[in-house]
């Protein structure tokens, strides 16, 4: 009996340790930790110019991208738009923010609509110019754009209080992309 209890406790401890080892963690799923690819281009968070938001925490950004938060503070519906695969911007967002691969991303939103929890899914566009145009036209839109491609038609939002040019800014593309 004692042996059974000890073995069960060990098994539970191993299991718990295994579980937390699976947690992607804020570093690999994004978060505010510095990126290892420090020489790459920065990916800015862009919203419509009428959107009053100026700063987003990483957790809030993740909730918006996962559509767990469906409305902005001004009541506008959140519309997420991403570049289509295989753009480097999309890969970074999926890896850093969603913590998913492409098929897992599709399954998450399919299951979300299946359960009724999610009533929409992120839009997909082919070009960064199209993404900026969409954000310009749709008041509740949020997306991502390379800092070098930013213009006055969209508004840039800080991430965890950091501007895209900050050395500790979390969303940085790999150096060779």
């Amino acid at each position: 009996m004692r042996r059974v209890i000890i073995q069960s406790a060990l098994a539970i401890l191993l299991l718990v340790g295994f579980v937390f080892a699976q947690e992607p963690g804020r570093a690999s799923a994004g978060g505010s930790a510095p990126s290892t690819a420090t020489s790459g281009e920065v990916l800015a968070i862009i919203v419509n110019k009428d959107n009053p938001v100026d700063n987003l925490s990483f957790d809030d950004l993740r909730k918006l991208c996962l559509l767990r938060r469906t409305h902005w503070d001004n009541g506008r519906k959140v519309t997420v738009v991403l570049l289509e695969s295989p753009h480097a911007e999309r890969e970074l967002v999926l890896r850093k923010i969603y913590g998913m691969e492409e098929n897992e991303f599709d399954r998450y939103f399919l299951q979300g609509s299946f359960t009724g929890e999610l009533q929409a899914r992120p839009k997909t566009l082919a070009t960064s110019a199209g993404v900026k145009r969409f954000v310009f036209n749709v008041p509740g839109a949020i997306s991502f754009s390379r800092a070098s491609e930013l213009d006055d038609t969209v508004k840039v939002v800080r991430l965890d209080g950091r501007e895209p040019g900050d050395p500790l800014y979390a969303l940085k593309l790999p150096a060779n992309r």
Partner: protein
Amino acid sequence: MAAIVAPRLVLAAVPRAAEEPPQPPHGVTRFPVEAVINNPTPSFRRTSATAWTNADSLTRADAASNESETETNQMKNKTGSEPTDRATASSQPRNKCSQATRHRPAIGRVFTRAAMSMLLMASLSGPSAFAGPSQSSQEIIELKKKVAAQEALIQELLEWKKQVEASMPSAARKAEAGLEKRAVPPEAPPEERAVVSEARPHFPDLEFHGFGDVTYHASDRQGDKNAFALGQLDFFITSRLSENVSLLAENVVEAGSDNEFKIEIERLLLQVSLSDYLNVAAGRYHTAIGYYNTAYHHGQWFQTAVRRPSLFAFEDDDGILPIHNVGVSIGGSIPSGNLGLHYVMEVGNGRDYNPGSAPVLNISDNDDYKAVNLAILAQPDWPSGLQTGLSGYHDRLTLNGKPRVDQSIFAGHAVYKTPKFEWLNEAALLRHDPSGRDGAHYTSGFYTQIAQQFGLFEPYLRYQYLHVSDNDPVLSPLRITGVQHGPSIGLRYDFTDYAALKLQFDHTFNGNHDSVNEFTLQPAFTF
């Protein structure tokens, strides 16, 4: 805004002043040709194109005209040519008084007569003699008046504009200023415009998905035959009707134990998302008891294992819970920071537990009492993927020929789920308390399931337990009694992104110490 015109533009509309007529020779007084031509006095005489003569003055000076002509003829005879100053010669007044001056020197007489004629004509013609300069002045005066009036109008409009701007809210002013300064993206190529337009929401926005499975199972259960079986063909439809309103429908076609197909509306929900804190849905839904019932419905492809845990079996599969309900469901998030709390409140018809009756009360209820359910869920920010929850359900069951039974169901769950790993844990307790009788009956159940994905393969392990109280007034008539428990072990192979093959082995202990072994192979897919 046509009234606000630069004065110079206004002036441009004013007809130009009459062209200045040519200056008359010295000593000759001019007046318009029309006045001369239209003058009825027969004594009018026009002596040259530029010489104008006042008819009245000619009448008065008529008497002196003969003398003038005589002098003219005398000069002509001497020089052989007409006098150069014909106007002077013809315009001299024919005045009887001039006879008195006949004896004066000729030049002096000419000057005197010229001066007298000028004075006489000026006094007799009045303003008409100076019509040219007077008319221009008048026009200038009128123009000046018009300019002044236009300037006053412009000033008035500017004042009105200031008043309107002052009365506008500051935000509107800022927005207006912002719009004036907002950069506009350059014109996009047609194909990009089409794509962006396509990406914008269009309503209704219908999406259709399907789920299906085929099963082969074999077991050592007495009387059971190994067989292939068509699973449920699930037609899943969603449609956004507007930004905040959507429809969800799940229609299932399946064959019963008699091998006959039937179609059933498993879910039909009209959902209104008012905010993150309030979402309202009405129709037929899966009751928010625990985790598995709301996370997994009729699409086998979503589930890791071959079948649902016994605790959450469907009503027509000897399930003990009210899996489906028809009513209203309200839910949303609770402001709780990183805790991520959510709530669900449901009111519906409940379940009919009478043997032989349709378990889901789709269009009528067998009593006036409505089933109510309340669930509180927590999805903290860290660790992401963790969800815990508690729910409480209550209904008053009407059983044919039996006392009413108060049904209470309490459930709790702790789930950790990521794209590559899941650990599901749930437990539920049913309490059936017949009114007017002693003692309530309790039914309990739980399961735990763990799965880890390795590439395309995902092995999993489940252990489940279900204990239905003997002589339960609700479940015993349905022949659901006793204890069932045991492990299930399986392997899921996702050979495509939307199709998977599952292999599962179940060893189930029954309360009477019998056990059943069952093997199931199931390809499941979505489309």
